[in-house]
């Protein structure tokens, strides 16, 4: 258990180091001079204007851009360890502040989407497994494949058309009350719900074939109690594992969905920063997204023994 924890912690740090290094060198070897881009944002406020040589030189001096990449990386990493991720070229605000004010929006969206996919995926998966090979099962399973196959940006457009414009039920854009959450969360949660539904179904069917289910029947338990006490928890074990991965997919998905719904989260910040080549912010976003993803997986590892006593018993 302890060894496992240390190992995971090691991998965790490794991922952070590798991903930041990768992203740092990738971004800093961009075609085009970084100083020009920075000068545009810092002094001109628009990408469509060109800065003067003095402005470019000023930026170079201010940000030490004449140094080698490696020494720039070292100073960036050193500062990052102290929580200083630099300043955005675009707004001149600290990157960590830029990210932290957008973090709640992304976390809310991803969290609600995960919850939604669990609340939809698990019951439907169980239903489909219980009624295996019936018309219900068929409908559930086909809908799930459809949900996985639907491009989420397309779904977003369709949902917006129908629910916001035709039915006027939900606001289309922005960040506000719960009502603003519906469409983005539904769009994001659809594919995950489908994945979780399929997994729940197959894992439920797998569990129902196990000897201990037969043993429970032999004890005289009703079908319902067998499902609830004996099958469900076992069936959920692989589902728990997949939540971590799905969360990663969701974080990727937020990038597109946040752009469409004008949702002020990290995904949109990332896309905007990529367009604007706001390198410190891109770096910060990547770091945070990785961090969030890994923390969640850590958390899942922590709750794992609660549901599966075979893992990390002692």
């Amino acid at each position, binding site marked *: 258990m302890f060894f496992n924890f240390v190992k995971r912690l090691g991998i965790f740090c490794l991922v952070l180091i590798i991903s930041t290094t990768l992203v740092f060198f990738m*971004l800093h*070897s961009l075609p085009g001079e970084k100083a020009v881009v920075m000068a545009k944002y810092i002094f001109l406020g628009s990408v469509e204007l060109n800065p003067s040589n003095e402005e470019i030189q000023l930026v170079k001096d201010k940000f030490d851009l004449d140094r080698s990449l490696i020494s720039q990386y070292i100073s960036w990493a050193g500062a990052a360890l102290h929580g200083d991720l630099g300043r955005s070229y675009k707004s001149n605000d600290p990157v960590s502040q830029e990210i932290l004010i957008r973090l709640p929006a992304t976390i809310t969206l991803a969290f609600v989407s995960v919850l939604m996919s669990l609340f939809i995926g698990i019951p439907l998966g169980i239903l489909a497994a219980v009624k295996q090979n019936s018309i219900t099962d068929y409908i559930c399973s086909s809908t799930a494949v459809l949900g996985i196959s639907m*491009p989420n940006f397309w779904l977003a*457009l369709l949902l917006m*058309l129908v629910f916001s414009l035709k039915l006027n039920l939900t606001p289309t854009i922005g960040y506000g009350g719960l009502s603003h959450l519906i469409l983005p969360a539904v769009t994001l949660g659809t594919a995950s719900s489908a994945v979780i539904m399929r997994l729940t179904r197959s894992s439920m069917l797998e569990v129902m074939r196990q000897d201990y289910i037969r043993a429970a029947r032999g004890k005289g338990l009703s079908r319902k109690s067998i499902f609830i006490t004996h099958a469900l928890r076992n069936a959920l074990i692989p589902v728990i594992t997949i939540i971590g991965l799905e969360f990663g997919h969701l974080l990727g998905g937020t990038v597109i969905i946040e752009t469409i719904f004008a949702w002020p989260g990290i995904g949109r910040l990332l896309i905007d920063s990529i367009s604007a080549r706001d390198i410190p912010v891109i770096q910060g976003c990547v770091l945070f997204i990785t961090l969030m993803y890994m923390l969640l997986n850590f958390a899942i590892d922590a709750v794992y023994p609660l549901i599966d006593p075979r893992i990390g018993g002692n």
Partner: protein
Amino acid sequence: MQKTRSLNEFLKNKASVMGLIIILLLVMTAALADYISPYDTDKVVLKEKLKPPSWQHPMGTDQLGRDVLSRIIYGTRTTFELSMLVVLFTSAFGVFIGIIAGYYRGIVDEILMRLIDVLLAFPSIILALVIIGAIGPGVFNTVLAISLVGWLFYARVARASTLSIREKEYVEGARAMGCSDAYICFFYVLPNCLPPIIVLMTLNLGSVILSIASLGYLGLGAQPPIPEWGTMLNDGKEYLRDCPWLSVFPGLMIMISVLAFNFIGDGLRDAIDPRQLVIK
């Protein structure tokens, strides 16, 4: 015996057969695009812009007066070429790495698998976005960005298969006969770890198509006037309200082809021993 049974099993699955038919149709469409598409795909006829579907233009025309049907047809070619390229590239590389890791085990395996763990712990679309953001949009760059993380799953599955195959008697036999490691990997291990890889490839094709379309939608994929579904959707979203055919048809095509690959993949997975597949 095992093969014919799998085939029968597969053919019994109506959804998979339907998926197979759809894919065959789409592949034919892509192959015969030059003959069946009614118009030139990048011929701009501004006077004919934004015409709704009609007999003349069954899917209407776009903002530059180009025939949407023709672009969809050529888009099939773009999408299939790109996604096949990605899948072939990633599966070849992934299987290669997987077999090496599984066959030699030990320190090689340990290093490779830790590397894969590390890369897998990183949301793939984000990495693709950053790569595209760095090297710029374009067809080749899209393939590169998606491939960079795509091989991981193949490597995992191939490794798992190799680990069990290398313990089999026939491999021991071959080794006793003095076959080289390369020979054994290629003629004994590789054919035996193919079934789960093929299933994975089919399922993966669907998600690769989605990734390509997503990048296209963000304007980071294929460059106009190359007809690509995601890019077409991106172009068409400006006209969503008043000319929905510009976004509906490409979206539908993406969905149908992904659906078809998923159906085939599911069918194959059920037909081939399901336990060989690692959960994605």
